[in-house]
């Protein structure tokens, strides 16, 4: 397979091949984590085995928020420096964050179905996570429709900053809103306050670590992909320029 100079240039700009190890590590940890979730952790007293979805729900939600924190940091970086690398980091983290947040909401909803018989309860944490999901989706919309060139990047960055700072306020307002309708005391959504069995805690932590590693791996891959696409676009532009196809002469007569 002949590697052209163009391909080499693109690869050079994209960076070394570290993500592969991370992906294997992440997947490996997840396998271990899920085994622990299913076999090692004891059965929960009230909900039974259905509670085990908790070991997917909590880590996903954690990564969803972590990814948004990365979006926040990268957005600030971009607004200050206008460096493309910050923009790509924010974009990659947004895409991956929305995936994990979707997983968190679905798993949370399924859990609710088994705990309380409905597919959706307005549990404060789940509601806030849903709002996060909405902000993610809107952020992707801004990227898609935000206009040409650096404009979409700029707008998405502003939204990244505003959205992240807004999340605590959203949570506070939802908590206040729900204070009229307390959830059944018997089963708490995450069980942290009510004393978690040590084996459960271990299983949970392993899964949290696993999901986090997977996030980092996916983030690296996606970011590299975007940087490569960028490099390719730059090269194409240079090509067009040299071929003289990019610009046109002005409409005024040149005598």
């Amino acid at each position, binding site marked *: 397979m002949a590697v052209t100079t163009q391909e080499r240039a693109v690869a050079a700009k994209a960076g070394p091949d570290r993500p592969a190890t991370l992906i294997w590590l992440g997947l490996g940890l997840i396998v271990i984590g899920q085994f622990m979730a299913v076999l090692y952790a004891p059965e929960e007293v009230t909900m039974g085995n259905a509670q085990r979805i908790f070991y997917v729900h909590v880590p996903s939600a954690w990564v969803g928020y972590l990814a948004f924190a990365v979006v926040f940091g990268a957005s600030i970086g971009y607004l200050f420096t206008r460096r*493309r690398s910050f923009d790509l980091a924010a974009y990659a983290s947004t895409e991956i964050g929305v995936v994990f947040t979707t997983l968190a909401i679905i798993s949370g909803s399924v859990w609710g179905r088994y705990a309380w018989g409905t597919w959706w309860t307005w549990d404060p944490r789940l509601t806030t996570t849903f709002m996060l999901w909405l902000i993610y989706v809107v952020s992707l919309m801004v990227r898609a429709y935000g206009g040409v060139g*650096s404009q979409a*990047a700029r707008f998405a960055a502003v939204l990244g900053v505003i959205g992240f700072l807004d999340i605590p306020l959203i949570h506070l307002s939802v908590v206040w809103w729900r204070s009229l309708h307390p959830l059944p005391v018997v089963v708490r959504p995450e069980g942290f306050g009510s004393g978690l069995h040590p084996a459960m805690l271990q299983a949970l932590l392993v899964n949290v670590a696993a999901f986090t590693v997977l996030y980092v791996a996916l983030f690296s891959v996606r970011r590299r992909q975007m940087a490569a696409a960028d490099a390719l676009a730059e090269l194409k532009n240079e090509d067009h320029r040299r071929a003289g196809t990019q*610009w046109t002469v002005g*409409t*005024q007569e040149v005598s």
Partner: protein
Amino acid sequence: MQAIEARGLEKAFGPVQALRRVTLDVPAGESLVVFGPNGAGKTTLIKILATLMRPSGGWVRLFGRDPQRDDDLRRLIGVVSHHSYLYAGLTAQENLLFAARMYGLPDAGARAAELIHAVGLGLRRHDLVRTFSRGMLQRLTIARALVHNPPLLLLDEPYTGLDRHAAALFTDLLEQLRGDRTIVLTTHSIEQGLVLADRIVILVDGAVAYESRDGLEDQHAVGQLYTEFVRTGAWVH
């Protein structure tokens, strides 16, 4: 005193490089005309000089001051764009009054009226800008750009959409009101540009392809030069 000093100006929009290491020196009082085909980076250059954009590389100083650290520097700059910067729903007087006040001029109302008269629109002073023709808009745009008497005037393709006659009128007005201001004007109209120019620069693909030194070649020669650069694609990196 140099009105404008620019060194190695670069501007990238994502993967597109709009300006490549542009270096310019414009002494006070000089009139520099920048020619270039579409996409050459003329508007980008003007926007950076007008402090509307930060360059991705290089630096620029206006009257020795750094536009990024000096909000007040904008007092010294007037801009004429191919957009009019005028509110259609306000009268000519109101438009200029607003500008004059925003520049903090002490006798804003009188100054506004003075300039409207200077560009020959005195009779239409209290008419909504919505009712103005293109030529009248151009005149009012110049008036607005000069309301705070800036020593530097930047014009970005002001001849866009003007026929030969209107363009000539515009050039006349500009010459009249010019005073000893420094002018930088971008255009792809060789004819009008050469009338105003003390010096010319040809921008191709974001880089300075040609810069006239002492004196000015005649229109024919510059026209030939320009065509040659555009057709052969010879440019400087």
